[in-house]
């Protein structure tokens, strides 16, 4: 368990976080820019000192204001990947990778890391000749090879353009899957978090708003103010139960008896998280016949949420023990005269569920 209980005055805002993060998998720290994400991760890495509080990783105290403990960055055993890669320009790639390696490595993992990050061909080159994505891969490798107990990543994709992001994201996914190393991942992109994280901590204006497993945080109404209508979505974990290779379709069981088709061929039995955009969900009273829409699910209307926008209303639809949100216009709501607890059908276009909305668990 990574226990964080710190306060720090940052100009006008007070950073105040009291949270526990798991010491496995990827924990995302999410918030707007200026919310205090980077300050928080700097505190974890020892690059900033909180005013009060305590940081503890497992049974190791990294910082304790009361006991005057403040381990220096080099004593913390935390790897750090910065937004700008910060490679040493006067070292070659392999020099950079070896910079922080322990003199007697306990894990003979140099080749593994090089292979995992695809660095074989870069080893002799110098940072000045690398692309942004390559630099960031080297920086990740360099941090991993210090054999850290915790890997801190401060928006490692934010300074990259979209093609570079797409190039690096699979490496990060492999990293998250294959390494038994807790990762704290700072990001302001829900897309990245969906692809990588298992746990999520949300900060706004210095204060912690939410902290918990990804799916429960994702569904929380407190997260909705962060998302535009296009970004609002529900997250469902599901298992692949059926595929239609000819159409590149897979069927995922999301709740007891309910399954949805997605427009992506997935391995059978695979565990996935599916993001269903609220704008892609519509409701109707009667089961539609002869429709192009692949997913028609019987749901119960659990709540009508019209508070956050005058443009549309969000419907909370109960699908077994899961929740799917649908955004509809206020006009549609008035015309349909929907009642709480009513049994309706949710329609989700299969084509709207594509690779970006699927993350393997």
């Amino acid at each position, binding site marked *: 368990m990574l226990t964080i209980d710190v306060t720090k005055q940052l100009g006008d805002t007070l950073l105040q976080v009291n949270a526990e993060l798991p010491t496995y998998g990827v924990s995302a720290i999410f918030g707007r820019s200026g919310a205090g994400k980077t300050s928080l991760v700097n505190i974890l890495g020892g690059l900033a000192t909180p005013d009060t509080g305590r940081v503890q990783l497992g049974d190791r105290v990294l910082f304790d204001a009361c006991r005057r403990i403040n381990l220096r*960055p*080099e004593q*913390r055993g935390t790897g750090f990947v*910065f937004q700008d890669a910060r490679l040493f320009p*006067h070292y*070659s790639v392999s020099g950079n990778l070896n*910079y922080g390696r*322990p003199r007697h490595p306990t894990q003979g993992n140099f080749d593994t890391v090089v292979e995992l990050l695809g660095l074989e061909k870069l080893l002799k080159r*110098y940072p000045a000749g690398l692309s942004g994505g390559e630099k960031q891969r080297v920086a990740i490798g360099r941090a991993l090879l210090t054999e850290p107990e915790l890997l801190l990543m401060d928006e490692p994709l934010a300074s990259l353009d979209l093609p570079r992001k797409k190039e690096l994201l699979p490496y990060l996914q492999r990293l998250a899957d294959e390494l038994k190393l807790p990762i704290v991942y700072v990001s302001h992109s829900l897309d990245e978090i969906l692809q990588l994280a298992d746990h999520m901590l949300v900060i706004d204006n210095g204060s912690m708003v939410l902290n918990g497993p990804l799916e429960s945080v994702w569904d929380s109404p407190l997260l909705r103010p962060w998302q535009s209508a296009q970004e609002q979505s529900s997250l469902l974990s599901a298992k692949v139960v059926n595929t239609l290779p000819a159409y590149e379709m897979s069927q995922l069981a999301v709740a007891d008896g309910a399954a949805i088709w997605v427009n992506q061929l997935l391995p059978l039995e695979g565990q996935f998280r599916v993001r269903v955009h609220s704008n892609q969900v519509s409701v109707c009273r009667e089961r539609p016949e002869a429709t192009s829409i692949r997913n028609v699910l019987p749901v119960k209307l659990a709540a009508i949420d019209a508070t956050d926008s005058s443009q549309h209303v969000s419907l909370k639809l109960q699908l077994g023990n899961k929740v799917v949100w649908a955004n509809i216009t206020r006009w549609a709501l008035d015309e349909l005269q929907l009642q709480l607890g009513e049994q309706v059908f949710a329609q989700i276009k299969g084509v709207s569920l594509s690779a970006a909305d699927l993350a393997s668990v």
Partner: protein
Amino acid sequence: MSLLTEYEVVALTLSLKVALTAVCASLPFGILVAWVLARCNFPGKSLLDGIIHLPLVLPPVVVGYLLLVSMGRSGWLGAWLYKYLGISFSFSWRGAALAAAVVAFPLMVRAIRQAFEAVDTRLELAARTLGAGRLKVFFTISLPLTAPGIVSGMVLAFARCLGEFGSTITFVSNIPGETRTIPLAMYSFIETPGAEAQAARLCVIAIVISLVSLVASQWLGRRVQLRASGQC
């Protein structure tokens, strides 16, 4: 048969010995002071900065006089050094080197300090997160990235040492083979009636070694710059 007279060879080798010794001996102090001025904040920093820069603006004869008073064999520091360590600067080439070093010190410190200020401290922080202590960070990150500045500081100081005249002649006099460097030898010829030709020859030698050291420093500077930015 040989290009230079024995007199000129003696003056030239003495000049080079004095300048090289002055630069090499003051380099560690130059790096230390430059680092302190670039990275530390403490009360009295402006005073230290001012004292370091004094030789740049003081008349060299004043520097020579101060050295004579303090470091001469009867000076307060010189007497102590002679008594306990057996080191004497008076009327020896070591004194010439000391005078040259003091006068050239501010030039060296300025160049190295600017280079330290230009080093990205975020790289140093990154090195800390990779487990490197402050000393390792200094020697593996800060110092190598400062190398171009150190080279240019050394060359500036070397050139200044070669040309040093006023404080040398005041502090250690003009002794052939011991403290008579090229500028002092030229001065002696100019003072001697009928030695204009010898003075002119020394003048040419001075121009040649200055040019050679400038060209060498540019070549070295480029190489070091490329190495520091990882392009070779």
